[in-house]
């Protein structure tokens, strides 16, 4: 193995690494918020009593999650290139819509898992339908799916690397750029691998800590 390690060029490009890291984090947060919003809406439709709502939810989930994320991103970037969305937004839309299908399945399972007596008891107490959902059903569903949401979010952090194909300057993209500048191929990719491992570990821990508190606060 005649490779001579030289980490100095990576240190010289630390600004590029950090900005890549920042964009990866930003993209993950935006993507996760979008996915949660879509997941809650579609998941609620999937757990609803009305048949058209459930059919819509099934069509969304099956139609979206059986198409590769890469195609979702290209669809916004190339397919709708006439409207010239910024690359970051294309990637965020692709991530949200794609992960939203997975989130919808989680929410649907969580919502159908809450016993019917809970809403009946709340209705007997005179709460309105919307209040029942918000104060009684959602908090319990949220807490039930917290571990799955944590793995969904770490999956999303990893998937955000695909934004590099449309030249969003996140970690994987910056790694390619630094590699082209310095030819320290191994060092660059080793660096971003460690950063991704850190991000994935931290993000799933954060979600696990955050989600139960969301539930408990709505109880108060």
């Amino acid at each position, binding site marked *: 193995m005649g490779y001579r390690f030289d980490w100095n060029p990576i240190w010289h490009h630390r600004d590029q690494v950090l900005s890549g890291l920042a964009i990866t984090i930003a993209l993950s947060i935006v993507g996760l918020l979008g996915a949660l919003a879509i997941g809650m809406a579609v998941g609620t439709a999937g757990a609803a009593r009305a048949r058209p709502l459930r059919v819509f939810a099934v069509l969304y989930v099956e139609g979206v999650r*059986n198409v590769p994320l890469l195609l979702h991103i290209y669809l916004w970037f190339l397919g709708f290139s006439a409207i010239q969305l910024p690359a970051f937004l294309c990637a965020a839309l692709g991530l949200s819509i794609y992960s939203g299908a997975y989130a919808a399945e989680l929410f649907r399972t969580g919502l159908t898992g809450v016993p019917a007596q809970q809403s009946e008891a709340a209705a007997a107490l005179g709460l309105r339908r919307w209040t029942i959902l918000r104060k009684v059903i959602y908090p319990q569903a949220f807490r039930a799916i917290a571990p799955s949401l944590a793995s969904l979010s770490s999956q999303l952090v990893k998937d955000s690397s695909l934004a590099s194909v449309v030249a969003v300057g996140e970690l*994987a993209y910056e790694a390619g750029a630094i590699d082209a500048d310095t030819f320290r191929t191994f060092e660059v990719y080793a660096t971003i691998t460690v950063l991704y491992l850190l991000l994935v570990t931290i993000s799933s821990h954060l979600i696990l800590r955050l989600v139960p508190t969301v539930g408990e606060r709505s109880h108060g």
Partner: protein
Amino acid sequence: MGDLLVRNAPFLLAGLRATLALAGWTALFGTILAMPVALLRYLDVPVLGRACAAYIWFIRGTPLLVVLLLCYFALPALFGYHTTASAAALVGFVVFLAAYAAQDMLTGLHSVPRTLLEGGAALGLTRLQVIRLIVVPLGARIAVPALFGQYVRMFKYTSVASALGATELTGSVLLVNGRVFQPLPLLGIAAVVYLVVCLSISMLGRWAQVRLVPGVVGLSPKG
């Protein structure tokens, strides 16, 4: 759009064939590689079990694209060898799938009830016989649905090989689009193809589950 399809059909079909081959070999080799990894973990073999745990942790914390970049750029630079985009993609996919598949197999092995192991031991079977005759056959069947989930995911993920410049389905679509610039019909066709194949793999998985997973009392996929 008809004209576009007719003229580029051979090229796109070659891309689809490449995708199917890539996914097929990945599923085969990935599953084979996952078996010893899951077993070494399950038996908690000194050093090797730990190494397998580290491997699973590493892959599950790293994006697929980064695994591919490591296989295509970083490792060849480190060890001084040459590789092609599709070879590097295949190696990356296999190493990637095997970690997830091993984790699913491990879950399957762990969900075989303890009472069955104790029963086997009470019958006078050795530890290895219990593993070979009871834990592996039952655990493998419990893992089948999860494994097919991984195959579906992997099939979609083969599209990432296009980022290395491989001309599988997505790569071919991008190339054709670069020439004719008709992104919507081209991406639409690719999306439909992925959708149909993914749904077929899922159906195959459900069929396999019904055939292979008998209703053994006390056995459930979630364990």
